[in-house]
C-alpha cells in the first residue's frame, strides 16, 4: 500500500470527529473528570499517536529530512481538518513534504482546554520532538489554523521565555484564519449569555447556565487569550527571529462586500493589510485549512529566502 493510500485508509473517522467536537465544547470538563473521551496532546500519523522516541520516529519516517513543519488544527477539529476533501491524501503538510522536503507533523489536542495550557503543552512536546528526532533539525515551520495559531503563538512565547532550543529553529509561522484580536462569534456568545443571566426568569437563567458550560478554550477565543491571567494578546510579542505570515478569507468573493466586512471568513475577521498578510476572498473559515491557492502562497513564502 502506498503512503497516500495508507493515510486515506487510516484517516480519522466519525468517532474521532465526534470526540474532537465534544472536546472542543467541553474539553476542560472531560479533562477534569479524567473522561476517556479527553484527547491527550500528541502528534498523529495514520490516526495513531506518534511515540516520541528515536526508534519510533525512524519507523514512522523512513526518510526523515532536517526541515520539519508542524500543523496545528483549530477548535473542535483534528488533524483531518488539513486533508483536502477531494483528495484526503493531500494536505499542506504532505504537499510541503513532496515539494520542499519538509517532514510534516500533525498535532491533535484537546481544543476545549485553555489556550495557555495548550501553548505550554505544545512547547514541551516540541522540545521532546526535537530531542527524539533522528536528524539534527535545521528549520522548523509552524502552521496553525484558527485556534491553532493562538496555541502556536503561546508555545513560541513560553518556549522563548524559558530559552527552549526548538524556538531558535523556527523560521516561519503561518497563522491561517487566526483570531489574534478575538473571535466575534464568541464575543456575541458572551453577550447573549450575559443577557440571558440578566433576565430575571428561571428559564433564561437555565439557558444561560447551559451556554456557560462551554469550554474555556472557546471562552479564550473571545479576546484571543494566549497567556494566563489578565495579560492580553498585546502582552505576547511576536517570536523574534521568525517570519510571521497571516492568511485570511472572506465569506464573499468581494472582500468589500458588507457580509465580508461583518462576518470575515464566517468566524474570524481578517487582519489589517500588511506585507506578510494575504486575503483569499470567497474562502470561508474551514476551507482555509485545505485550499490549493493558499498552499501555493505558503509554498512561495517557504521557498523564499
Amino acid at each position: 500500500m502506498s503512503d497516500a493510500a495508507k493515510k486515506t485508509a487510516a484517516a480519522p473517522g466519525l468517532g474521532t470527529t465526534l470526540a474532537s467536537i465534544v472536546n472542543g465544547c467541553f474539553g476542560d470538563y472531560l479533562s477534569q473528570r479524567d473522561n476517556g473521551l479527553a484527547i491527550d496532546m500528541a502528534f498523529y500519523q495514520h490516526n495513531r499517536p506518534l511515540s516520541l522516541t528515536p526508534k519510533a520516529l525512524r519507523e514512522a519516517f523512513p526518510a526523515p529530512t532536517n526541515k520539519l513543519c508542524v500543523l496545528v488544527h483549530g477548535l473542535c477539529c483534528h488533524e483531518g481538518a488539513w486533508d483536502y476533501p477531494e483528495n484526503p491524501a493531500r494536505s499542506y503538510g504532505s504537499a510541503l513534504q513532496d515539494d520542499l522536503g519538509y517532514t510534516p507533523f500533525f498535532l491533535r489536542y484537546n481544543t476545549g482546554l485553555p489556550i495557555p495550557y495548550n501553548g505550554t503543552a505544545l512547547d514541551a512536546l516540541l522540545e521532546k520532538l526535537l530531542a527524539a528526532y533522528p536528524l539534527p533539525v535545521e528549520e522548523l515551520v509552524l502552521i496553525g489554523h484558527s485556534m491553532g495559531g493562538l496555541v502556536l503563538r503561546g508555545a513560541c512565547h513560553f518556549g522563548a521565555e524559558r530559552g527552549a532550543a526548538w524556538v531558535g529553529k523556527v523560521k516561519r509561522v503561518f497563522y491561517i484564519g487566526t483570531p489574534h484580536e478575538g473571535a466575534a462569534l464568541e464575543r456575541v456568545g458572551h453577550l447573549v449569555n450575559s443577557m440571558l443571566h440578566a433576565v430575571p426568569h428561571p428559564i433564561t437563567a437555565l439557558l444561560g447556565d447551559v451556554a456557560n458550560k462551554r469550554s474555556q478554550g472557546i471562552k479564550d477565543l473571545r479576546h484571543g487569550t494566549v497567556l494566563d491571567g489578565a495579560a492580553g494578546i498585546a502582552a505576547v510579542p511576536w517570536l523574534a527571529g521568525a517570519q510571521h505570515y497571516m492568511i485570511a478569507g472572506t465569506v464573499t468573493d468581494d472582500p468589500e462586500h458588507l457580509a465580508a466586512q461583518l462576518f470575515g471568513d464566517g468566524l474570524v475577521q481578517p487582519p489589517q493589510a500588511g506585507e506578510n498578510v494575504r486575503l483569499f476572498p470567497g474562502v470561508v473559515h474551514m476551507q482555509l485549512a485545505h485550499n490549493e491557492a493558499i498552499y501555493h502562497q505558503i509554498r512561495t513564502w517557504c521557498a523564499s529566502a
Partner: protein
Amino acid sequence: MEPDTLRQIRGAKDLFEDAIEAAAVTIGEVQKKITRQPYRLLARIEPIAAPVRAIEEVHLRITDGVYFSIRLGNRLVGIVAGFALDRFEGRSREK
C-alpha cells in the same frame, strides 16, 4: 475492539450519564422555582393560604420524586453499562 475505542465508549457513557444527572438536577430546580410562583400568589389569599401551602408541599415532593427517579434510573443504567463494558474489556484482553 481496540483499547482506545473501548476507552472512548466508556468516556461517552460517563459523559452521557453526567449530562443526564446535571440536566435532571438543574431542570428539577427550575421546575420547582416555576411551580412555587402561582402558589406564592395564591398563598396571599388568607382563607386558602393553609391548603395552598399543603398542596404546594405535595406538588414539590412529587416533582422531587420524579427527578430522583430519573437520576436513580440513570445511575442504575450507568452501573449496568459500566459492568457490561468491564466484561467486554475482560474478554477482549483474554483474546
